[in-house]
């Protein structure tokens, strides 16, 4: 007997206990509750339309959670009528909800395919003007997911030129995102082309054509992204790709230093190596010879690299430069001139020179000879490090 009365009762939660106490004590008008609820909507009773569409929405969501795609589609079929809701507020909110749920269903439903998705996305984009951008962006991401890069890019290009609808702040953000992703796709294409190029031999007749193509592409892409990153926001993934392109085409760009910082902070070894390359790259150019930051970075990084036993990296970089860097950066003339102009710069350069050319090089010796009232301690440290880590040092050749 008791089992079944228990069955009837069900678990009693704290809430239930509370309410029964309340109702036991005071007056309760259940019918009043429904009227109170209508105060928000101006005293009119809630229509059954609103109640059933809201229930329909719950069913769709439940089906999605349980991965019952067929059921979800069934309920979605009925939910479309909210596009015609006589309540204007709900009617305006409908397209977004329908897009979110519908795209989810079409993504997973076994009978759905890219074709279906595209039709759906195109339809939803054109319902009113408020949703075009957002849906375009998500549509493009869907296509990306399915590896259809060209289609995605086309989509984004179309969306970029969308000129209708209000000029709200969210619209601005969406446009930026669209441009960003488009840029990213262009970067990807550029990257692929570069890989192609690297496989070609320089003497191959196609090389020049491909190289030219890559170059053009680079400029186009970088132009897009550069405009973008001027806008405040967090653009890291896009910046990385931008900078990489720039590094190829303009290694001396001042962004390279930032790039180096990013690379240095990365956890990947290959990034660390690239970081070194980038620094050397920057200082290859005449315009940067006096850039103290670059020298500071290089000094520090060289030491770090050598301490980390990556002599090979340094040697790699130095090999192509050892013939011309000494006279380009570390001549006697430069030593005198740098010291006169900027002692800090001279010190950094000296350190680098010492590490690369050994303590016997002219630049290093000259700086050391100067009066070091202020930089005394630093010079001493530098001397020690050079002694220890210089690549010329026979001690480190093992």
């Amino acid at each position, binding site marked *: 007997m008791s089992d079944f009365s228990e069955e009837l009762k069900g678990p009693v939660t704290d809430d239930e206990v509370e309410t029964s106490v309340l109702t036991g004590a005071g007056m309760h*008008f259940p019918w009043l509750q429904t009227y109170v609820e209508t105060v928000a909507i101006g005293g009119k009773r809630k229509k059954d*339309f609103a109640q059933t569409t809201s229930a329909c929405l719950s069913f769709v969501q439940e089906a999605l959670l349980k991965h019952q795609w067929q059921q979800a589609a069934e309920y979605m*079929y009925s939910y479309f009528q909210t596009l015609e809701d006589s309540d204007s507020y709900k009617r305006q909110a409908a397209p977004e909800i329908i897009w979110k749920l519908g795209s989810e269903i079409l993504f997973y439903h076994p009978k759905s395919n890219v074709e279906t998705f595209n039709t759906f996305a195109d339809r939803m984009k054109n319902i009113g003007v408020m949703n075009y951008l957002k849906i375009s962006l998500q549509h493009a991401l869907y296509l990306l997911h399915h590896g259809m890069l060209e289609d995605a890019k086309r989509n984004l290009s179309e969306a970029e030129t969308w000129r*209708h609808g209000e000029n709200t702040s969210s619209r601005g953000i969406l446009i930026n995102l669209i441009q960003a992703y488009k840029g990213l796709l262009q970067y990807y294409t550029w990257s692929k082309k570069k890989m192609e190029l690297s496989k070609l031999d320089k003497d191959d007749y196609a090389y020049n054509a491909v190289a030219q193509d890559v170059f053009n592409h680079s400029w186009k892409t970088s132009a897009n992204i550069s405009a973008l990153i001027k806008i405040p926001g967090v653009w890291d993934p896009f910046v990385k790709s931008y900078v990489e392109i720039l590094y190829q085409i303009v290694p001396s760009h001042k962004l390279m230093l930032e790039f180096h910082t990013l690379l240095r902070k990365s956890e990947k070894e290959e990034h660390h190596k690239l970081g070194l390359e980038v620094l050397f790259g920057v200082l290859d150019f005449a315009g940067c010879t006096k850039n103290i930051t670059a020298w500071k970075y290089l000094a520090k990084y060289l030491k770090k690299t050598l301490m980390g036993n990556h002599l090979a990296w340094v040697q790699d970089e130095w090999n192509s430069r050892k013939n011309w860097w000494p006279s380009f950066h570390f001549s006697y003339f430069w030593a005198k001139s740098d010291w006169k102009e900027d002692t800090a710069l001279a010190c950094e350069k000296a350190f680098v020179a010492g590490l690369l050319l050994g303590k016997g090089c002219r630049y290093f010796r000259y700086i050391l000879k100067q009066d070091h009232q202020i930089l005394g301690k630093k010079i001493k440290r530098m001397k020690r490090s050079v002694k220890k880590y210089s690549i010329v040092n026979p001690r480190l050749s093992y």
Partner: protein
Amino acid sequence: MDLEEAEEFKERCSQCAAVSWGLTDEGKYYCTSCHNVTERSQEVINTDLIPNAQIKALNRGLKKKNNSEKGWDWYVCEGFQNILCQQAEALKNLGIGPELKNDVLHNFWKRYLQKSKQAYCKDPVYTTGRKPTVLEDNLSHSDWASEPELLSDVSCPPFLESGAESQSDIHTRKPFPISRASQSETSVCSGSLDGVEYSQRKEKGIVKMTVPQTLAFCYLSLLWQREAITLSDLLRFVEEDHIPYINAFQHFPEQMKLYGRDRGIFGIESWPDYEDIYKKTIEVGTFLDLPRFPDITEDCYLHPNILCMKYLMEVNLPDEMHNLTCHVVKMTGMGEVDFLTFDPIAKMAKTVKYDVQAVAIIVVVLKLLFLLDDNLEWSLSNLAEKHNEKNKKDKPWFDFRKWYQIMKKAFDEKKQKWEEARAKYLWKSEKPLYYSFVDKPVAYKKREMVVNLQKQFSTLVDSTATAGKKSPSSFQFNWTEEDTDRTCFHGHSLQGVLKEKGQSLLTKNSLYWLSTQKFCRCYCTHVTTYEESNFSLSYQFILNLFSFLLRIKTSLLHEEVSLVEKKLFEKKYSVTKKKSRSKKARRH
């Protein structure tokens, strides 16, 4: 197509959002960038540019061109008449005799038109300056027998067929043509001639027609004919789309255009509510000054003795309970002709809730037999179970617990399916309702969009799952003896809960508790309230079950149960029961 740019049209194309229009040969605007043709024609736009003064020109212009854009002239009450016609036809298809449509409903409606001064009277409501060319009051006497053939025919729509023709018959109910000018002076418009005015009309003493009220008319007619359909049946048929209601306006003739204010009048987005329709039935009955309805006698379907049997069968309770319900009916006087028959003029016109009353009686009987205090019913079930195990060859004793298990399962399943069907219900019709001409292309475009989306998704749905419409049935649950999966309790015996005392039978249960201790005496519409947590779970289950069956609120049923008890315990009785002791209503 004419490539000339239509400068004056400044709207954005609904398909491509460009503003670049040309004119087709028919004078309609089309978008020169995507070639989307609109329904807007130049004439209409031009008159927009020339405000107020030229409205009459608009009228004249349209009439000359016989533009099908505006359609026929029609009145709101014609719309209602059309709906009533459709409903009567549907009832006929359900098996109701044709007299309901041709005679009863017809007459009620005419009487209504007369009483509300919309037709058949000296000064119909539409007089605005022009004298009516019509009508004497032929229906001043309430004699139903003689009936001139005024409403020309009985097929729908009677009004409109003559609308297109001339006004040859002065007896046609259309009082006279109203000039659109008086209406179009307001900024709101409607497809009907008097839509705006109708929605604003507030005449004292007149019961204004609404779509829910059409069901009141139907019910009155059914009641007059004493047909075997209760109000809850009727409303359930409406919910199941066997009777036109939600988008009844869809079946108006093509030329009867609906828009603007008509939306509010004919565009219903809620199912009818039992209490609402019940109230309207009484209101209309009273307003129409109807005489006493034909008697509800013991052989009528609506008599509680018969209805109780029906509901007992439907919820799988033993036939033997019927004896008890009949006794209760007798004791309370609820089987009396005067109690049951609807008489609008009489003060106590509050009956006619036949279904709710019958069900309330069953609830009372269940309480008498099982007490329903979450205790006794289970003890009695134990006894029944023991007995049944020992005596497998005899007629089994009714086991409340077993019944509860089976019934609860069936009920939960049914309710779940019902909720799912409701969530999937499609409210919007193929014929979209729009605010005005400006709105029309947008509304149609939206509809097109919805249809396309639905088509796309219907390919994702397994077609076998979407079964066809169920055929209407009076019974929602069916139980047969042959079904081995689910026990049928119809033939079970109440021996386990009754005992003999001399010549009479008494219930083993000697206690009772009242659903309502004290009735409210103020002027509110309810005489009692229902707070679930104050009552036993068994009682709640029973109420939920029956309320679902009738699609009513549990509070309504609870109230009716209380009223039955009030009658029952006012009198003394001896035959089947010991004297009951009333118990305070349960509190947790």
